[in-house]
């Protein structure tokens, strides 16, 4: 099912660099926030507005995504005194951040609003467990769900595992290669004071942790946390008046799917994920390719999801993802670090927003590590990546976020600093 040759989807070429992410904000990453999702969202959106050097009156649209587990945009807007020219709350988890960023561009381009706040707020540990345990684990199984849940096939790890296993079968990918994703992200997280897990893990730690569902060990799976996260999107023209160095949106692909999104295991090599389709939109629209990218934010709900996406977006040859994630390339100091905040595996689980926030900070050269802050308020990065040290990528100019919903659905976004 090839894409038509003339596809012009979320960001036609003339929109390159015309929009910017001007503000990023989050709450703390905890297990036990002690707050409602409404309070978490409000806190995160306020932080993003302050980060941009804006006031609530400058925001006229709010988008959010959720899975029946969070507050809605009008409540958050109301709390902050934002009058809305547009709002929409969509049903979605991973891959929504990039998709909604593309939609925000479309909304502004259509003249419907000017400056858009996008948030995701969840008590992913203390209320609706993202791993599917607790209240969500035993609802009545109806209709189409009989083909999955009646077989004990329900959680994200269980649903994705046949893709992971088949990749091992098709390409000889080894558990220790994929475990390197967790080990490397944990090194990154150890230099991120706000990460929920700051401890460094080794490949052996991952392989020795108990099996959840093959091929996933406990430490191949991300951490469930409570948090709110937010970004602010506006035109590059308006962005010049904002407080931060400019981070421009180069290209977006949103919620691109494999054939048979209803039951993707019926079609295509099942060891190939949506990125193999999405990349045909992302790179032409962004006008850059994988070789131009300095750092990536490949969605790490599991170690495997980061590996599969890096491979299918073309950062290495098909089948060589195991080698790519374990040869040092994705480590801080390597050729193209991935998830320098520690990502979902270590910083906290946000359905993708924290990886976009991190890349924006990286492109501003303002990674919030423990390096000293100068009198001008700018961080003096040491580029010493030892535990507790720096996590700023040297000369970061172009980043790529690779968002994952399922093996069959993904979004991606290329950002660059001016």
């Amino acid at each position, binding site marked *: 099912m090839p894409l038509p040759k003339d596809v012009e989807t979320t960001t036609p070429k003339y929109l390159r660099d015309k929009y910017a992410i001007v503000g990023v904000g989050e709450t703390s990453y905890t297990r036990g926030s002690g707050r409602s999702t409404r309070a978490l969202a409000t806190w995160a959106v306020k932080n993003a507005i302050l980060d941009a050097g804006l006031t609530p009156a400058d925001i006229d649209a709010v988008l959010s995504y959720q899975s029946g587990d969070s507050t809605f945009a009008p409540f958050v807007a109301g709390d902050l005194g934002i009058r809305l020219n547009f709002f929409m709350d969509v049903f979605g988890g991973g891959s929504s951040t990039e998709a909604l960023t593309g939609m925000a561009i479309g909304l502004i381009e259509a003249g419907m609003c000017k400056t858009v706040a996008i948030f995701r707020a969840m008590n992913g540990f203390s209320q609706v467990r993202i791993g599917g345990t607790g209240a969500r684990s035993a609802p009545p199984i109806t209709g189409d769900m*009989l083909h999955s849940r009646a077989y004990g096939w329900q959680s994200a790890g269980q649903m994705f595992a046949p893709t992971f296993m088949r990749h091992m079968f098709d390409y000889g990918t080894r558990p220790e290669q994929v475990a390197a994703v967790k080990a490397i992200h944990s090194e990154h997280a150890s230099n991120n004071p706000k990460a929920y897990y700051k401890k460094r893990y080794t490949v052996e730690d991952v392989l020795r942790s108990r099996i959840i569902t093959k091929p996933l060990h406990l430490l191949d799976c991300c951490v469930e946390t409570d948090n709110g996260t937010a970004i602010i999107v506006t035109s590059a023209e308006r962005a010049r008046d904002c407080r931060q160095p400019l981070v421009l949106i180069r290209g977006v692909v949103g919620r691109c799917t494999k054939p048979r999104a209803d039951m993707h295991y019926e079609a295509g090599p099942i060891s190939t994920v949506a990125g193999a389709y999405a990349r045909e939109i992302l790179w032409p629209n962004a006008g850059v390719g994988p070789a131009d990218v300095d750092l990536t934010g490949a969605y790490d709900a599991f170690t495997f999801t980061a590996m599969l996406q890096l491979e299918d977006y073309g950062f290495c040859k098909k089948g060589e993802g195991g080698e790519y994630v374990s040869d040092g390339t994705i480590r801080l100091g390597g050729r193209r670090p991935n998830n320098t905040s520690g990502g979902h595996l270590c910083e906290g689980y946000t359905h993708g927003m924290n990886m976009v926030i991190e890349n924006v900070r990286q492109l501003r050269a303002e990674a919030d590590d423990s390096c000293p802050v100068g009198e001008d308020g700018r961080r003096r990065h040491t580029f010493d990546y030892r535990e507790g040290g720096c996590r700023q990528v040297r000369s970061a100019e172009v980043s790529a976020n690779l968002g994952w919903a399922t093996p069959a659905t993904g979004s991606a976004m290329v950002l660059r600093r001016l």
Partner: protein
Amino acid sequence: MAISAEYLGMPLAIDDLDVENLEYFRFCALHDFHLQACAGCGLLRYPPTTACPWCANLESRWQRVEGKGAVHSYTEVHHAIQPAFRGKTPYLILLVELDAQKGKPTPEEGLRVVGNLVTPAGVLAPAEEIRRVGIGTRLRMVFTDVGPGLALPQWTIDEGAKEPENPWRYPQE
């Protein structure tokens, strides 16, 4: 007519407007596996859908399909999420590629039917049987009866088939 039943303590239900699933499971309850065949192009599809994924024809008829195939991929669950499966670990979730319509209409397509590894009687298989199954293992369909009009298609080792010498299993046992 709507169906509701209980399996391993889990409430299962199909409402009366979900005619595709009602029909699919009605055949399963007769232990007679059927899939929808497109009235236009004739291709079979799984699971039940409301149109043909290849030609968008809204009409279909139910056609008997032989429940035999080989494991295309799988996972072995050691930490159950649903309370119904806690006490049942380890269990296998299998994607079995049917011999019927294998590699059609394109070489990467096939009818990959979900199920657990069960005994010939339809009960979740014990650990020693799970260890015999990997990618490539030949399986045959059996059914787990749930209630009137409802049985779940499942998979059991096809003892009569020529099995691969070393079906691929996750390397870290």
